[in-house]
């Protein structure tokens, strides 16, 4: 009889601990061994002794943390099975950002898949989510409410380009975090035919270069710094999220503040963010996609973490599967407030 995963997975203050392997997954603070799902700051912390992750994730950590990123790195490509202690570990694509992975754990005949952050929507910058059957599926629930419906990303890009043509005397300033969303926005714009240079804030440049080094075509990407700001009318700019009252935006020609995130779906929240053009473009699964993925993976038991557990647990239970919350602390740093995720 295979041991039930609840006997060999433990929730600790640092995060999820895999007992027979002696490692944490995405530990919130320094750990001995860590398997890291992706490079976002609330999942990939510096200072672990040994880190296993996809080559892309490790490179992101090196770019962000430099020498103190980790004691030692162990790259694992998608699909390569590794043994850590008494556990077989395989990283599979999660479709969240470049290098993002689900962690497949196998121990004495029972299999658990930890999804990390994931999405099912189209993204030219990273490998798409691959469902893996298992006994327990540990899923994120950032957008775990029936009101979160992301819909078609190409249409949202169309709305952005329409706004650019409607206001040629203004610039459009997209607020996006430096890992994942900004590169996806650039790639989606290129796909939609936007050939002009895209201007990025200095904090975005290192990761844009990283994406390009891994073969993601971003086209002509230039720094905002050094440009005559008044000359940026009609252009698209990307920078860390701002409400337009940051001093560095002074001199920009009447910027249209664009918010690109799943939170833009709900009007009250979009207004809170002070955006003029809310676009619903997210790097997480929406409500339908969470339920659809859980169904596709087909695990008889689902553990819900990292977001709004209650509603998702209820919906999964109504659908005839076992579900419970896995309380994990400390998420929600980089990707914005309200439990993380953009």
């Amino acid at each position, binding site marked *: 009889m295979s041991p039930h995963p609840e006997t060999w997975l433990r929730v600790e203050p640092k995060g999820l601990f895999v007992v027979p392997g002696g490692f944490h997954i995405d530990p919130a603070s320094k750990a001995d061994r860590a398997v890291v799902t992706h490079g976002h700051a609330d999942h990939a912390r510096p200072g672990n002794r040994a880190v296993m992750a996809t080559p892309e994730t490790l490179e992101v950590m090196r770019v962000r943390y430099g020498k103190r990123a980790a004691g030692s790195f162990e790259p694992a490509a998608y699909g390569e099975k590794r043994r850590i202690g008494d556990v077989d570990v395989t990283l599979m694509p999660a479709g969240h950002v470049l290098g993002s992975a689900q962690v497949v754990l196998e121990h004495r005949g029972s299999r658990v898949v930890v999804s990390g952050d994931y999405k099912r929507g189209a993204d030219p910058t990273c490998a798409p989510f691959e469902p893996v059957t298992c006994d327990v599926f540990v899923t994120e629930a950032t957008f775990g409410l029936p009101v979160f419906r992301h819909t078609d990303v190409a249409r949202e890009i169309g709305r952005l380009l329409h706004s650019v043509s409607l206001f040629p005397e203004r610039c459009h300033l997209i607020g996006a975090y430096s890992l994942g969303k900004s590169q996806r926005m650039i790639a989606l714009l290129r796909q939609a035919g936007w050939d002009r240079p895209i201007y990025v804030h200095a904090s975005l440049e290192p990761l844009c270069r990283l994406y390009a080094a891994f073969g993601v075509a971003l086209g002509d990407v230039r720094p905002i710094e050094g440009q005559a700001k008044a000359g940026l009318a009609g252009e698209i700019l990307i920078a860390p999220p701002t409400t337009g009252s940051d001093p560095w935006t002074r001199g920009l020609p009447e910027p249209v503040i664009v918010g690109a995130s799943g939170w833009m779906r709900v009007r009250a929240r979009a207004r809170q963010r002070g955006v003029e053009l809310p676009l619903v473009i997210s790097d997480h699964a929406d409500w339908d996609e969470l339920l659809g993925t859980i169904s596709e993976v087909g695990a008889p038991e689902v553990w819900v973490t990292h977001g709004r557990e209650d*509603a998702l647990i209820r*919906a999964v239970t109504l659908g005839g599967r076992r579900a419970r919350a896995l309380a994990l602390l400390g998420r929600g740093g980089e990707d914005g407030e309200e439990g993380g995720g953009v």
Partner: protein
Amino acid sequence: MKAFSALIDALTFAPSDAVKLRHLVDYFARSADPDRGLGLALLTGAMTLPSLKPALLRSLAAERFDSALFESALDYAGDFGETVALSWPDGADRQGLTLSQVAGQWSKAGKAELPGLLAGWLDAAPLDERCGLLRLLTGKLRLGVSPALARRALAGLGDRPVREIEAVWPAMLPPYESLLAWLEGRAARPEFDRNITFYPVIPNRVIMSNDLEDFDSYQFSAFFSLGGARVQLSAQAGGFRLITEEGDEIGAAFPEIMNELPVDGVFEGELLVLRNGGVPDAGGLQRRLAAKRVSARMLGGHPVTIRLLDMLADGVRDIRALPFPDRRALLEARLRMAPSGRADLPPMVEFSSWSELDAVRRSAAGPGVSGLVLRRHADHMGEGWLTWMREPHRVSCIVMYAQCGTAERATYFTHATVGVWQADGEGGRHLVPVGKAEAGDGPEERDRFDRFVRDNTLNRFGPVREVAPQLLVELAFDRALPSSRRKAGLTLQAPRIKKVCWDRPPAGADTLDELYHLAGLPLPI
């Protein structure tokens, strides 16, 4: 309804009228007749639909959704209609809805048919249209599109002056097909009844003392103004219209004026809410102007009167060619014949020279007087009303809070809340806010003020910063009117910062009692 839903989203987040205009003109281009005219009418309030009762929406939600899931969703989103629209199951190949279909069927449906009708629409519509549909039916369309803004958008569409739109507007009905066809160059100008003489609203211009140098004082009449809302009242051939300076029709919100004024003709005047002692209540008037429909309670609590300044038509006789004193005499005669508790005539101010009138202006009696209004006797050039504001009062205040300004000042903390000292009854004193105004004339002072705020922040409340009470400013204002809603007990009209006094100590600021005295208001008990 795709374009309409997109438009109401864009208008929700539009930061200015200029941006709204751009979206409206774009909407006309992206949408077809009759939907686009209907959309415009729904936004301006020219057309309204019977509102969707909350109970109906609640029972629909209870039928379709698991209640616990719906509660969690509603908790987050906050808006019932939006939660229903977003949570509604999606399907492939939704053909969508049209505004004419929705507007037509909703108005005609019987009470029992409504739930099925709504559910059918929600099933047929993609997500964005569902959201637009529920906003429309729940009446959440106050997006700042006044009839005046709509006419500016139409003028933009046809690249014509707004005056031309205003001239035909009274005869135009939703969905405005003939109007839109003319503006797009597909048809001739719509016909309107040429027997109805069009009386453009007399423009109003604010003048400064030196503007009068070129005028002869004996060619003008003058009255005191109480700063009411300037309107034109048109009572002709059984029809009443009350129109603002911008050309908006507001008669529906002022039944007491429309119903109780027996005289026929076209008049110009100012609307006022007057309290005891003839003191105008500016806040009360604002509330009346903002309400599209008025309740009995509002009528009782904020009664409106009209102070008539001029008569342009006596019955159907156009008297604009007569010199002003003759028109005034006719107006006086008419009101003597049919006096009304709702209308009065201000007395004319006697003067024989500008300097004499200036002396009157400076010593203007009464706290409610906002200034003088001048009218040229023979106004062939269409100059209109000339408003000569009274000298502003000045008070020394302390900067209490600051937040960022708008547009090019969006990154500078120059929008200041200022206050004066108030004794707290125990020998000490604290600051009480009296108004908000923009500080920093010119880029150097703007930078200096912004730096001061950033360097002296005591506390942050969202975008507002509490500032150490060390900076004195000279605040000018036109009038101070009593207000029960303000901590200070009064509200200042048109406050503006004349000077930032970098070197004066904060103890030099005025007290609230001194402000009351300056404004000519009795001290509160």
